[in-house]
């Protein structure tokens, strides 16, 4: 294949190779180059592994939000649901139930809130902004009522192995879980018919419905996955600290949405990749870390994410992709 044929083949099949990730890779590379010039200490192995670890802890929730963004929806309640699921699981474990029972209850609580969001958005036709803001309030209230505003400590040590592993683990299991989930979701969203439906419905719900696809069922699947993802992120965090707090993850929803957009997704739906969301979240986490590393006041913390988000939107617009619809 000569070079002209290669160019044409890529134009014919934009999903081949890096495709849509080109810009998030470019953005990440540019960003890392700037950081290297300004703050070489950032690249110490300890700091880098801590960043990847923290990103992986959050990835289940980010992937859940990614699924909803592909559907053209979003969820503001992921942070509150993550905290609530951790609290529910912690309550179960401190009440003497086995760790798997606690985990299952926590995940179930997340799925229930996902289904609640679906009921509000799809069945009651409340906008996703308002509906998920309502469930955010409900989830936070449940956590606060359950804990009376206090953290729950004294969780079984076995629970800690989920995020931290044993003393012999050089790489914590949470890293394998986070990266493994990204790979699985990336594969499934490319090749599995149920996950492809997310893109079909997000791209044009009317066309999907007229093709016999149940738009409502696919949205239920998306919301339930998002709830489960949020719950799993909450459980990983609780496993890391062996405690649960009702105040965890105040910014997770907006950070996840920002990560997906930085990673190439469009809020109009129908586009976006799991790997892009991972790199997007990595950039968000790096921005937060950079402020600490540079010794800048924490009041500047939000600015880093805002600048990257703005750059991502500008780069995406520069692509001029018609298929993005926005």
């Amino acid at each position: 294949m000569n070079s002209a044929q290669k160019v044409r083949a890529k134009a014919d099949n934009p999903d081949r190779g890096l495709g849509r990730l080109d810009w998030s890779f470019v953005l990440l590379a540019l960003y890392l180059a700037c950081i290297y010039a300004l703050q070489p200490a950032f690249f110490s192995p300890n700091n880098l592994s801590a960043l990847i670890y923290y990103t992986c802890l959050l990835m289940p929730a980010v992937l859940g939000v990614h699924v909803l963004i592909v559907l053209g929806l979003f969820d503001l309640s992921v942070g509150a649901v993550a905290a609530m699921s951790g609290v529910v699981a912690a309550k179960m474990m401190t009440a003497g139930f086995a760790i798997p029972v606690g985990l299952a209850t926590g995940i179930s609580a997340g799925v229930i809130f996902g289904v609640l969001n679906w009921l509000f958005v799809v069945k009651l036709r409340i906008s996703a902004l308002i509906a998920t803001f309502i469930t955010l309030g409900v989830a936070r209230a449940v956590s606060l009522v359950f804990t009376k505003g206090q953290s729950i400590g004294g969780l079984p040590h076995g629970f800690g192995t989920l995020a931290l592993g044993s003393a012999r683990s050089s790489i914590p299991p949470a890293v394998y879980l986070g990266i493994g989930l990204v790979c699985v979701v990336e594969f499934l969203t490319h090749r599995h018919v149920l996950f492809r439906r997310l893109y079909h419905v997000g791209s044009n719900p009317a066309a999907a419905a007229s093709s016999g696809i149940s738009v409502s069922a696919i949205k239920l699947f998306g919301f339930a996955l998002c709830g489960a993802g949020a719950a799993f992120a909450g459980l990983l965090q609780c496993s890391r600290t062996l405690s649960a707090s009702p105040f965890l993850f105040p910014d997770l929803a907006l950070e996840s949405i920002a990560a997906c957009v930085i990673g190439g997704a469009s809020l109009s739906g129908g586009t976006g990749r799991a790997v892009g969301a991972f790199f997007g979240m990595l950039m968000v986490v790096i921005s937060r870390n950079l402020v600490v590393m540079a010794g800048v006041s924490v009041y500047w913390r939000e600015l880093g994410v805002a600048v990257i988000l703005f750059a991502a939107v500008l780069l995406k617009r520069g692509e001029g992709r018609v298929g993005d619809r926005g």
Partner: protein
Amino acid sequence: MNTEPTVLYAEGLTKAFGSNLAVSKVGFSVSSGEIVALVGSNGSGKSTLLKIIYGTLVPDSGCTKLDGITLKQGNPHEARARGIEMVFQDKDEESKLCPGISVIENLFLGREPTSRLGIVQLRQMHERAKQIVEHYAFSLPPLGARVGYLSGGQQKAVAIGRALLSEPRILLLDEPTASLGLTEKRFVHRAVNELRSSGVGIVLCSHSLEEVMQVADRVVALRSGELIADERLVGTSEVDIALLMSK
């Protein structure tokens, strides 16, 4: 006279949007290998009628039967499963396909071949699409290209290709050639004739009387949602159809 068995039978279909009666007690039939043209001025209820048959609209009353068995109303999934396909007109949201995904995925939307674990069989899809392209001497855009990048005519070609791929028994065409050039129009007419000879019943909704004269066997005329004529086209001229519409 068409002696083929009746495949599709619509009876007493009625649909109102608020106080506006879009279709009123309309009934007609389509036989195997027959092309029925639906004619009428704008707002006469042609597209509404096709959407009711396909299942994207639920009628207030009436029913549609395929091979004598009543179709579930408002269920395009069942309509497709039983062999009814539709190409929507350009202004419908449905006609826009899914702009963010590839041509090949749009061609198989809703009926992708999968493994037992649900993995989409891309190679099988490409092979099947190539067969259709060769069979109908059809010109499709590159199969990996995103539909959002394509021109209106190319998108229409994808929509028609999608209908052909499923080997339908009844094909509903709502203004299929409205946005097409001369070459593409010829292709559509050739494909329609080929489908007729292979026994597919076709309902063609068109504003072009020339097109109706060229391909249709029978004409069903609507005015203000009511059926005003159902006649065979033998010995009928364009003027007769125009008069029929303006009765």
